[in-house]
């Protein structure tokens, strides 16, 4: 039945997606004007991320994942194509709609954990009480109660990344973009953080776009995995991860998990 409706879809007359899309990218391409000539980085990317979904992007190094994320965040303008976030175009950073979490926690070393979390609120001049209250709530959400007065250099890598997530969540944006947020962490902390992220996500019902190089992490976290080709980056496969939620560490040992991981690996090898 599902197959039938797909084959019958005519371009320009697609059936409406079952859920409202939080992010819609249509025919996005990007060319960098480098010193050694033009670098085509992204080619004809179209994707749709349903509201509340957890989508993971994987692809070979240099295929344009970070570039795509920057454009979704409104931090960089694409050469061609459109990006809609909840139906409205994104052209400038809009922290009310989109929160970004970067690879390095990139916390400000001159601010305490709490002040770092408050930073986005203080930029728009929120009253002090409100700032404190919301930052405290975020600190508790990410499991760092009591660490608010510490400076980043007094925190472990995992704790820093938790603060960074809290900072991304403090304005309560419906969409969260994460660029390899756990890449700098050791394997064990990384898995714990993934688990933590799912816990937080299930409580906040955000739409998440998450970039990673780790296939295990991709399968563990995602509703859907998008595989990109080597430069210029195109989306060459979309893999639905049908594992039930909540995800557990035990699932990683199952055949279903292994097969999904295998399929992504196969696609990436083709892509490179």
């Amino acid at each position: 039945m599902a197959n039938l409706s797909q084959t019958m879809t005519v371009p320009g007359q697609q059936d409406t997606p079952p859920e409202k899309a939080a992010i819609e990218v249509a025919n996005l391409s990007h060319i960098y004007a480098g010193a050694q000539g033009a670098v085509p980085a992204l080619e004809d990317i179209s994707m749709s991320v349903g509201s509340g979904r957890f989508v993971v992007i994987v692809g070979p190094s240099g295929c344009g994942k970070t570039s795509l994320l920057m454009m979704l965040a409104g931090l960089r303008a694409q050469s061609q194509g459109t990006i809609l976030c909840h139906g409205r175009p994104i052209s400038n950073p809009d922290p009310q709609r989109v929160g970004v979490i970067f690879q390095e926690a990139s916390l400000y070393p001159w601010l305490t954990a709490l002040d770092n979390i408050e930073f986005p609120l203080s930029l728009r001049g929120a009253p002090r009480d409100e700032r404190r209250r919301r930052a405290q709530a975020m600190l508790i959400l990410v499991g760092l109660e009591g660490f608010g007065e510490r400076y980043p250099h007094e925190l472990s890598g995992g704790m820093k990344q938790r603060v960074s997530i809290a900072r991304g969540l403090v304005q309560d944006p419906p969409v969260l973009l994460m660029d390899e947020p756990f890449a700098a962490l050791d394997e064990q902390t990384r898995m714990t953080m993934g688990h933590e992220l799912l816990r937080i996500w299930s409580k906040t019902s955000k739409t998440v776009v998450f970039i990673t190089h780790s296939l295990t992490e991709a399968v563990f976290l995602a509703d859907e995995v998008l595989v990109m080709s080597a430069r210029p980056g195109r989306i060459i496969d979309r893999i639905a991860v049908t594992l039930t939620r909540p995800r557990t560490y035990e699932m990683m040992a199952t055949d279903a998990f292994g097969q999904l991981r295998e399929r992504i690996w196969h696609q990436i090898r083709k892509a490179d």
Partner: protein
Amino acid sequence: MSRAQIIMTRLALLALVLAAWELLPRHQVVNPLLLPPLGDVLSMLGKLLLQARVHEAIGVTAAEVVVAFLIAVPLGAVLGVLIAESDYLGEVFKPMLFYVFSIPKSIFLPMFILAFGITFAQKVAYAAFTTTFVVMISAATAVESVKQDYILVARSYGATRAQILMRVYVPSMMPLLLEALRISMIFNFTGVMIAEMYASRTGIGHMISGWGENFQMPELFAGVILLSAVAVLFNEAVRFFEARCSAWRT
């Protein structure tokens, strides 16, 4: 080693040096004409400190140091930020700057004397000239030290240009700038001294070089102690400012 032990060791070393300074010349182990005993030097310092012309010299030197510093720091900071922030100015001036920086500035001193005569302005201009380079290069380095990630994060949270400047650039550069301030003060003080010793009618540097030429060793060493005290004072003044500015240190 505990903190107290370290301090004790330091004091012991200092006492040892001072005792050697007093005792070795006193007992003719070293020639007291070349190195007068500490006691003689200190009593000379006491006498000098009562003299009006010494007061005047201290006043003139201090004024030169302060004025040159107040000119060089903002000037160097603005120029440094400009060459760091503007790709064009950076490309044009940075190589030149590094070449000029490598030249000993004292060879320009005769030009300052020709331009300003042997005056207050000559010392200030020369010291400010040498210090501006240091501040400029430090400021440019400080700007370049600001991590792009920090700026990106602020932009992603919708920071305006002014907010990025005040909330990211300034605090991020602060430790380097404060460090630079102290080093600039050392260069600045050295500049004033060189200018005074080279050609001057007053100032501590001028007095010291005069005593040296006339082989007045007690006066010379008293002058050196006095000068060291003034230099340490300026250094501490900058450090006091530094401590008040830097809430965080890594």
